[in-house]
């Protein structure tokens, strides 16, 4: 068994985790103000923003990947602009994957955070405003520390979801070793060439790791709710 594992090329896993880690980090800072805004606003455009944010959940990854490919490619106005001004290309390379993953995984970060913020007692937030604290200070010192379970769920699920993405990655990144060939794409290719042995090992590693990650989330959340006496 160990011999079999030793023979496996682990670069695609490493790439998957690097992609997921970066995506989670970027999305955390993007989603925090967005989720806070959605949870506290009474604006009429809230449903529109919510629907746009949730779109990646319902769209087939190939549709999202197709639009991203079209809009990021060098023949699009955006792609042209990025290429000529910043010398950046965003298709068939790792940077492009990160951008695409941020779109793809956005709802998995925003929704748990928004739910966490909405579950907070509104008078508790008002008590913070009355204490002279701005909305930003209230977010960082009162709201965020009291939604730890939601925070953990959001980051872990975003990470796991990005590790598990396939369609968008394939559309935008293709399968370039050490650049865009992530674990899920690697498994697809192994099955295509009927290398079931490697596919088994890769898939098994994915299942075990995903389970351990989710288990630790649920264990942590249970402990937290005990601690806060909820």
């Amino acid at each position: 068994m160990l011999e079999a594992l030793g023979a496996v090329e682990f670069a695609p896993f490493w790439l998957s985790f690097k992609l997921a880690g970066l995506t989670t980090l970027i999305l955390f800072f993007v989603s925090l103000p967005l989720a806070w805004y959605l949870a506290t606003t009474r604006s009429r455009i809230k449903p529109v923003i919510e629907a746009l944010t949730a779109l990646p959940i319902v769209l087939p990854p190939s549709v999202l990947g197709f639009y991203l490919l079209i809009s990021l490619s060098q023949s699009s106005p955006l792609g042209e602009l990025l290429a000529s001004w910043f010398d950046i290309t965003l298709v068939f390379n790792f940077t492009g994957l990160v951008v695409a993953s941020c779109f793809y995984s956005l709802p998995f970060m925003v929704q748990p955070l928004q739910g966490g913020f909405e579950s907070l007692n509104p008078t508790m937030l008002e008590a913070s405003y009355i204490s002279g604290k701005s909305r930003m200070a209230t977010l960082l010192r009162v709201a965020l520390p009291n939604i730890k379970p939601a925070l953990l769920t959001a980051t872990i699920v975003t990470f796991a979801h990005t590790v598990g993405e396939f369609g968008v990655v394939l559309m935008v990144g293709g399968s370039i070793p050490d650049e865009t060939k992530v674990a899920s794409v690697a498994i697809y290719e192994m099955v295509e060439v009927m290398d079931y042995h490697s596919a088994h090992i890769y898939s098994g590693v994915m299942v075990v790791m995903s389970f351990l990650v989710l288990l630790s989330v649920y264990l942590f959340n249970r402990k937290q709710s005990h601690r806060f006496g909820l």
Partner: protein
Amino acid sequence: MLTIQTTKSLHGAKGEMLLSVDLEITKGEFVAIAGESGSGKTTLLRILAGLEQASGRIVIDGAVWLDGAVSLPVQERRIGFVFQEYALFPNMSVEEHLLFVNPDRALAQHLLAITQLTSLASRRPAYLSGGQKQRVSLCRAMMNRPQLLLMDEPLSALDPTMRSRLQQEILTLHKEFGTTTLMVSHDPSEIYRLASRVVVLEQGGVVADGSPKEILLKTTGSQKFSFEGEVLEIEKVDVIFVAVVAIGQQLVEVVISPEEAKHLTIGERVEVGVKAFAPILLR
């Protein structure tokens, strides 16, 4: 001096209602706001705090908090607010609650000492009783030395013993800080003990305004004693009838005539009064 002239239309349980309040409150006064639920008491406090939009004018000691539609943000009004449901921060200890408002350690220690919370300073809200939580909320409200202290039924969730201890602490703090205080309350004994003035709201308007004595001592006609109660049972005993009436927590029996018995129904609200003779006190 606090001047309140404010109007706001509310969508209450009984349909549209106009909250319209015009009050002058002397600095350092303790005012109780009474009235049925849905009369606009809480909304009035929230308007004063700046948590609710309204039009009109609010001026305190020369500082303009509201003028027309121009409203000073809640963060810049120097207020303390004590909510009925405490509204504490689960992630902070008792002491952190106080220092969150104002990093004045000496003041925090002093407040904790007055409210006997010193030994609980490092506990989080999950490990406090209701009375202790409300004390933390009270201390937190005093930490920025408020010009105006607002309390929305602060003691209604507590048992009578705890309530009376906290009343004393509220009074102590009110006097020591010289704060103008507005408290929503339903409890006549609480109002009598704490407030120097009572304002009664009904359907968004002020219907009574005076000292607790004037407003609360409701003895009309020649009655010396008069209590409101609910008829629980009407019983025939020989030739007379006896009604069992609940007055607060106390049940009393009252002899009534057959004619009266005919017109009374179980569950009806009645007034029990003593008229013809001087009452005696028993102990």
